[in-house]
């Protein structure tokens, strides 16, 4: 707790100069935009600096990799946007942090996104994109950045780890129960050791490599993408060299926007969730392609005046040839309300359910622990370039002997 107080004290100290430097950051923004060839080529460099801190109970929830009670996770993100003529757009995102997901690792840099988009016609009906970029599935991606996300962590479907491992194939239901920490219950700390092996339904924004076709036709929009790995796959395999192209994942989304106030969408995805190194653990007669993740998602968005609301529900099925289909459903309801021009509050309810398998005695046993989590967080924008968010999360898992899980997090962001 002492460490957290120190960190929030630092936030307060940083806020002062950052607020005073608002006009300076406007000039930085202007100076990082340049053009050539009579504006035919325009380039903008921008970024965010996030100072993130967590106070949590062990085991650390979701995609947070720390065995301590506190974690400081700074992140510098740099964005490059280049408009070449009217039809070509290039963008990239590079980050320096302690890991793609918050963790205890050392500072390192990565190129998280790079993409080339070609729009042959001005009406936006057809766009082609290749590179390494966020998935087109769902409606969370447009706000997953620290500045636009009302919260610090991702919703449950994008972060809650399941009993599916991507480095090994489960051969029996007992093995699946063990991996899901359902039976037997792990010793204290055991869950943390297993954590690095598990995958969620969708891993964050899923910056996998591939190609996409998308566009808008009237009130409808569509998107189809082929990526090198499934939605559940971890960041380590998102890169072009992270996996081979013999088992691509296919994702699609169809959206309907009757007016700017409402948006609706359905998404679907299929892809092999195992990494190539799992080959030696497969059941005889089966290949990696037999271990597939199928995802069907529905999303809704609403915005009017100072209120915004989003909801998504995902039904996922992991096929395990010798066990059966491991099914799970996760959803969340998220709202944001601006209370003043600078102060907002956000509330999110998340829940995930798991299907059952028969154990050796014929008893139906869930292959994961049903979980609910409530996230609440105020945010304050000091200037158009600086923002402080605080998030408190309360999580409960069924069949869990421990008390409720608590997490308190703070994030100070400077945008330039």
């Amino acid at each position, binding site marked *: 707790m002492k460490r957290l107080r120190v960190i929030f004290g630092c936030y307060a100290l940083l806020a002062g100069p950052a607020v005073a430097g608002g006009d300076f950051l406007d000039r930085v923004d202007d100076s990082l935009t340049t053009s050539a060839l009579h504006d035919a080529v325009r380039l903008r460099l921008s970024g965010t600096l996030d100072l993130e801190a967590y106070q949590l109970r062990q085991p650390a929830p979701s995609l947070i990799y720390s065995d301590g009670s506190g974690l400081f996770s700074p992140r510098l993100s740099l964005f490059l946007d280049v408009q070449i003529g009217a039809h070509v757009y290039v963008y990239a995102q590079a980050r320096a942090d302690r890991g793609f997901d918050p963790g205890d690792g050392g500072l390192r840099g990565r190129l998280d996104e790079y993409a080339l988009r070609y729009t042959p016609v001005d009406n936006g009906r057809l766009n082609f994109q290749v590179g390494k970029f*966020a998935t087109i599935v769902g409606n969370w991606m447009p706000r997953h950045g620290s500045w636009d996300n009302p919260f610090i962590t991702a919703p449950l479907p994008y972060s809650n780890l399941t009993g599916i491992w991507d480095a090994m194939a489960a051969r029996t239901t007992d093995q699946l129960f063990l991996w899901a920490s359902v039976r037997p219950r792990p010793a204290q700390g055991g869950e943390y050791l297993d954590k690095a092996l598990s995958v969620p339904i969708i891993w964050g924004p899923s910056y996998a490599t591939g190609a996409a076709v998308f566009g808008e036709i009237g009130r409808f929009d569509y998107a189809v993408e082929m990526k090198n790995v499934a939605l559940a796959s971890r960041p380590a395999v998102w890169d072009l060299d992270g996996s081979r192209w013999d088992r691509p994942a296919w994702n699609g989304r169809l959206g309907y926007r009757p007016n700017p106030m409402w948006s609706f969408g359905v998404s679907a995805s299929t892809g092999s969730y195992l990494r190539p190194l799992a080959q030696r653990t497969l059941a005889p007669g089966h290949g990696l392609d037999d271990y597939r993740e199928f995802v069907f998602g529905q999303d809704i968005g609403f915005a*009017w*005046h100072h209120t915004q609301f989003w909801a998504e529900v995902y039904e996922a099925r992991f096929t395990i040839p010798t066990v059966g289909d491991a099914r799970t459903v996760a959803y969340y309801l998220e709202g944001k309300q601006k209370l003043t021009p600078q102060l907002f509050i956000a509330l999110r309810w998340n829940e995930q359910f798991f299907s059952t398998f028969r154990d050796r005695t014929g008893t139906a046993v869930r292959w994961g622990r049903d979980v609910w989590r409530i996230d609440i967080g105020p945010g304050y924008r000091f200037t158009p370039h600086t923002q402080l968010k605080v998030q408190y999360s309360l999580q409960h898992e069924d069949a869990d002997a421990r008390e409720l899980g608590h997490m308190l997090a703070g994030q100070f962001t400077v945008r330039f």
Partner: protein
Amino acid sequence: MNLLRPARLVLAWSALPAFVFAQAAVEGRVTLPATRAAPVVNKRYEIVTKGGVLSTNPPLAVVYLEGTFSPPPVPPLAQVAQKDLAFIPTLLPVQVGTRVEFPNFDDTYHNIFSFSPAKRFDLGRYRSDEKPVPSVVFDEAGLVTLRCDIHEHMRALILVLPTPYFVVTDADGRYRLGGLPPGRYTVAAWLDSKTTAPSRPVDLQNGVTAHVDFP
């Protein structure tokens, strides 16, 4: 939809005293700062069909007559529109007490806000067909930076002045400020948020056009 309305409103107000009070005028040229590059629209997670390619907005200055003037009997009205993911105009001078409307002519949401000390507000997200058109009364002199919470490249300025006598230069820096009351005044030129050219004294007489340059 009438994008010329803001300009007409400002011109109409500026011209009004010419018929009622005076015929003096001042003209000249302001040396403008260098042109900035056109903004780049962030399309990373959006399909942007219109407004994806923006034109460069040349720097403009506002020339105004300094002094103490009585407030307008009827609050003036002006507009800053949102069209093709840009504010039109990008620089709007208004007199203190002016109500500025913010019509949205795009088929997508905008969310105009300002954290400027002279006026802090957030209009939220409103549909283009909502009535009345969202508006704000600017009741304190100063510079107000408009932004859009959805489209980070969108930026515009409203310069709230305690005088009804002002004009925006053309792209070459030339201006003509007419309909002024005769007398001894000072004329100032606002160039950007950090720069206002030093005031110049001017002796205004009926039927005479004074000349003041701001190098």
